[in-house]
């Protein structure tokens, strides 16, 4: 099995710890002097840059959350002057405010490096045609795969998402060998191939790198069978860098984290204590080489566990298990992040309805669907069908324009949605992971 950067990816762990500690020291010093937000948080905790000497001291630092990014929207947490920022990405955010990330020239190089590792992990090389069907744009998926593909010298086909007929045509005519997209879109493409009657022999696909949403072992088996490929799980989040944070190797036994760039911890999401190896908890990252947007102990809200044992592929980088869920209520709908609170705030802005609602998420023909059930209120109900239909349409339009995903709205009777004194159940997710 090929390894892109043997020096780091197979580094002896005591040596790796030395590298990580040195990089953590540099990062902490940088954020302390360049980001007022981090400085004041550290001062509040009675810490200075000298308080953090190695990975063992990291636990002293406070956590960073998505809310902190929002509070400092758009560029408040950037650690370099804007003149040093060469790229900005953003992920869909709550009520119109996206989470913004910035990259220095070196960050882009780092991102290409870790994506090159990811693709090499999946067995791709300079002879491959990489079919990138992740969206290009503010979303990090498309460009992340793109730069990694170019870095390893492969031929990159920047198809982006959508237009299935064209996807299939190019895949066949160009002889794509590596498919990069969300796992649900891979299944969708597999079924489209079946329907159009294209023979798998006419395609040259041999491996897929799939991420940006949770998926099950069963989905993996189905994709592998239907497309006759090896399906590799990749992991990343735009706050940390985008795709490239971690990737499975061909052993398909956990995802190798590029620990020389992103230092992982697992914490108990309730007590916030650090958990030992093998225990399931929330994944937390400290970026230890990033310049544009360094993050200190960033809570990903993804649940998983870590294994430090050396992999059969020869890599020593820690492995994380396939994500097992979330420690918050975020949903991922066709790769787009959605919090129930976002839906709630759209409803709260409408005087005609009360925010009693239920979100029902399902997967139909391998594509995620969301239905929103909203209660009809006595105060608004005036017995005209046209008025109720207009209300339904209005809610649907408001949701789509604010959240960027289409949600089917159904009006329901008041008592259909369970009332609860404590935290109401707002989501029924029927998808099987």
């Amino acid at each position: 099995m090929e390894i892109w950067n043997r020096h780091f990816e197979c580094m002896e762990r005591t040596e790796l710890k030395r590298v990580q500690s040195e990089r953590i020291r540099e990062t902490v010093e940088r954020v302390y002097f360049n980001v007022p937000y981090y400085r004041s948080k550290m001062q509040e905790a009675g810490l200075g840059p000298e308080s953090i000497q190695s990975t063992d001291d990291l636990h002293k630092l406070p956590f960073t959350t998505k809310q902190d990014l929002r509070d400092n929207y758009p560029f408040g947490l950037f650690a370099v002057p804007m003149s040093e920022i060469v790229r900005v990405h953003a992920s869909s955010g709550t009520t119109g405010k996206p989470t913004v990330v910035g990259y220095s020239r070196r960050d882009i190089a780092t991102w290409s490096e870790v994506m090159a590792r990811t693709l090499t992990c999946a067995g791709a090389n300079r002879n491959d045609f990489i079919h990138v069907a992740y969206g290009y744009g503010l979303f990090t998926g498309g460009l992340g795969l793109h730069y990694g593909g170019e870095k390893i010298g492969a031929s990159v086909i920047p198809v982006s998402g959508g237009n299935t007929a064209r996807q299939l045509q190019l895949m066949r005519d160009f002889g794509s060998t590596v498919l990069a997209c969300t796992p649900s879109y891979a299944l969708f493409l597999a079924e489209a191939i079946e329907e159009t009657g294209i023979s798998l022999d006419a395609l040259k696909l041999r491996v897929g790198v799939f991420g940006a949403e949770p998926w099950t072992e069963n989905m993996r088996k189905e994709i592998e069978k239907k497309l006759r490929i090896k399906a590799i799980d990749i992991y990343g989040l735009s706050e940390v860098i985008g795709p490239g944070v971690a990737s499975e190797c061909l052993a398909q036994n956990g995802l190798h984290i590029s620990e020389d760039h992103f230092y992982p911890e697992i914490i108990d999401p309730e007590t916030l204590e650090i958990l030992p190896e093998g225990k399931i908890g929330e994944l937390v990252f400290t970026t230890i080489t990033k310049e544009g947007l360094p993050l200190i102990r960033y809570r990903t809200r993804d649940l998983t566990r870590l294994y430090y044992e050396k992999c059969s592929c020869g890599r020593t980088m820690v492995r994380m298990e396939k994500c097992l869920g979330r420690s918050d209520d975020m949903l991922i709908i066709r790769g787009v992040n959605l919090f129930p609170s976002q839906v709630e705030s759209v409803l709260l802005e409408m005087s005609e309805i009360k925010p009693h609602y239920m979100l029902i998420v399902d997967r139909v023909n391998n594509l995620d669907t969301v239905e929103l059930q909203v209660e009809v209120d006595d105060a608004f109900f005036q017995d005209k069908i046209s008025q109720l239909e207009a209300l339904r349409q209005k809610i649907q339009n408001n949701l789509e324009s604010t959240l960027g995903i289409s949600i089917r709205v159904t009006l329901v009777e008041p008592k259909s949605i369970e009332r609860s004194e404590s935290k109401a159940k707002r989501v029924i997710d029927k998808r099987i992971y």
Partner: protein
Amino acid sequence: MIIHQLSVFLENKSGRLTEVLEALGQENVRITALSVADTSEFGILRLIVSDPEKARALLRERMFTVNITEVISIMTSNEAKHFAKVLKILSDLDISIEYTYAYSIGDKSIIILRCSNTEEAIRALKDHELDLLKASDLFRI
């Protein structure tokens, strides 16, 4: 001449109509007219009952979305031309009909109308000496 009609929002789920009628039945509410307007996902049940205020309170207690709507009712011969005449009077005055339902007894038709302007509709129909009914009349027929 204004009749207070009960309107109930219903999801298209089996058993919902039964629940409404059973609730009303427990308190001896009588029903003289009923209609259901439906779409693929929900329906609106419209009822003329003996005590609309009481019926509304009853249903609200049981968490139904319910309101009282003003409608008018006319008794005519069951010949189509008489119904047509009623509609013509209203349309000549630009009064639109939001919905209507009717039933007949013998050779008489009882028509229930929801108009864009109830007061004006009553005045016009009275002027044409049509037989407007009160709620209490409906329970005597």
